[in-house]
């Protein structure tokens, strides 16, 4: 059995590819858990899983910790993703700068009318601190500033989009694959997240998704990762709403 845990963003990719992979390899079982990128990486460092799914690169601190426990993490990129900033469809705001975004999340800007929008208090929705999505957002937008303590921390992309879609004043962020017509995604620095802008790197909140193994992947694990990276695997990636590597 291959055990695989981590980012909820990567979860749909991992699961869909695992199903397809297992259809071709009935003798191999893949067990998949979510939790968040931090969860997966921690479990890899603790030596309890085979593959850690992550929506961010490992932090240097994590790498040191892994080394000290005799774990040698090796990253495999498996897909591209953009983090879309989403608001309620009724919201007239369609563009935000990184600076504005940061002020919203630190609690400096409290009402949409400060940004030229409707007179509506902003409901700040963030991801759990364990998620890679949060890490990327934290790094690129917050730049070390603290998210206001009144922000709701939700455990998954899905929870974020659901909440935003039902809350007129809400703002949140989620992986591109989770953006549906029920929410409106806003441009960042005038650039709309799309396959194009993510691939060419113009969209500021783009990232790679990874799978980490302890040492070079061997046996079934390497077969599985190779399957994801193959064109057949990348098709499944696109079907799940993410952006393929090639």
């Amino acid at each position, binding site marked *: 059995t291959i*055990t695989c845990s981590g980012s909820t963003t990567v979860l749909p990719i991992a*699961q869909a590819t695992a199903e397809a992979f297992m259809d071709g390899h009935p003798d191999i079982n893949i067990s998949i*858990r979510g*939790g968040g990128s931090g969860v997966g990486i921690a479990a890899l460092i*603790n030596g309890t899983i085979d593959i850690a799914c992550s929506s961010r690169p490992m932090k240097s601190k994590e790498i040191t910790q892994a080394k000290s426990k005799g774990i040698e993490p090796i990253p495999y990129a498996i897909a591209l993703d953009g983090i879309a900033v989403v608001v309620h469809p009724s919201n007239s705001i369609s563009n935000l700068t990184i600076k504005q975004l940061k002020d919203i999340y630190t609690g400096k800007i409290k009402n949409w009318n400060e940004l030229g929008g409707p007179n509506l208090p902003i409901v700040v929705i963030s991801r759990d601190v364990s998620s890679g999505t949060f890490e990327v957002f934290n790094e690129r937008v917050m730049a070390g500033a603290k998210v206001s303590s009144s922000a709701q921390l939700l455990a*998954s992309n899905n929870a974020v989009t659901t909440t935003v879609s039902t809350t007129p004043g809400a703002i949140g962020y989620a992986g591109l694959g989770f953006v549906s017509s029920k929410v409106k995604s806003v441009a960042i620095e005038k650039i709309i997240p799309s396959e194009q802008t993510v691939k060419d790197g113009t969209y500021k909140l783009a990232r790679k998704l990874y799978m980490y193994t302890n040492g070079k992947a061997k046996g079934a694990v390497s077969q599985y990762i190779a399957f994801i990276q193959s064109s057949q695997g990348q098709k499944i990636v696109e079907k799940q709403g993410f952006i393929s590597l090639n």
Partner: protein
Amino acid sequence: MNRRKGKNTFWIMMMTLMLIITAGFLVVFIVRIISLGAPVLSWKFIVEPPREAMTEGGIFPALIGTFLLTALAMIFALPSGIFTAIWLTHYGKPQWLVNILHIIINTMAGIPSIIFGLFGMAIFVNLLGFKVSLLSGSLTLAILALPVIINNTEQAIHSVPADFSEASLALGATTRQTISKVVFPAALPNILTGAIISVGRVAGETAPIMFTAATFYSRSLPHSLQDEVMALPYHIYALMTEGTHPESQVPIAYGTALVLLILVILIDATAIIIRSYMRKKRQW
């Protein structure tokens, strides 16, 4: 006088109202779960594994996982729980140890289940290296069930009149013979009821298995004690919070909840029926 009668009527109406509100809440709760879960329920839902990134298919691996976790937990917890109760009721010396053990059992009974989860993770998963597995999860659940089983068994044994033990001892039986031939058979129905109730409790626990046993998706059933398993309660939680296709996954979560609810209610109802049957039949 009229004031007192008025008060009386008022309070009786209040109590009635309280019961009605309570019943109302609970009826809404049950009806809601049933009405949302029933549409996805089918034979296939029970016997098929999940498919298409958890948007189709059933919950078979989770059902089996919960069964295995519970059964193993009981295999670990029942013997030690029953023997602890036997020691407490029949050997129990020195007295201070009995008192301390009672405090320990009551304390354990009150510990939040998430702490059992933490403990299981720290000890079984990490320290002993069992990883996230059926074994870690069922050991954790066993410890959680232990105080419940001990308390129930102790009560069951106490409900057997001391006359029986005395009669047995006076015939030259040893303590062991008295327990195994007289006390235990007489207490068995009550011990069983207690055990069944703890099965119901264990089957529904989520927090303790979150870090020790449960996985979001696994197609095949576990092959060994070292494997991760799907479990009904965790499945509900994971679908609601980590699911990636809410339109099709939330109904599955409801279906799973309904299955779990029916399972637990059936288990507990069995216990309650056995108990009331035995109470009527009991001749002492």
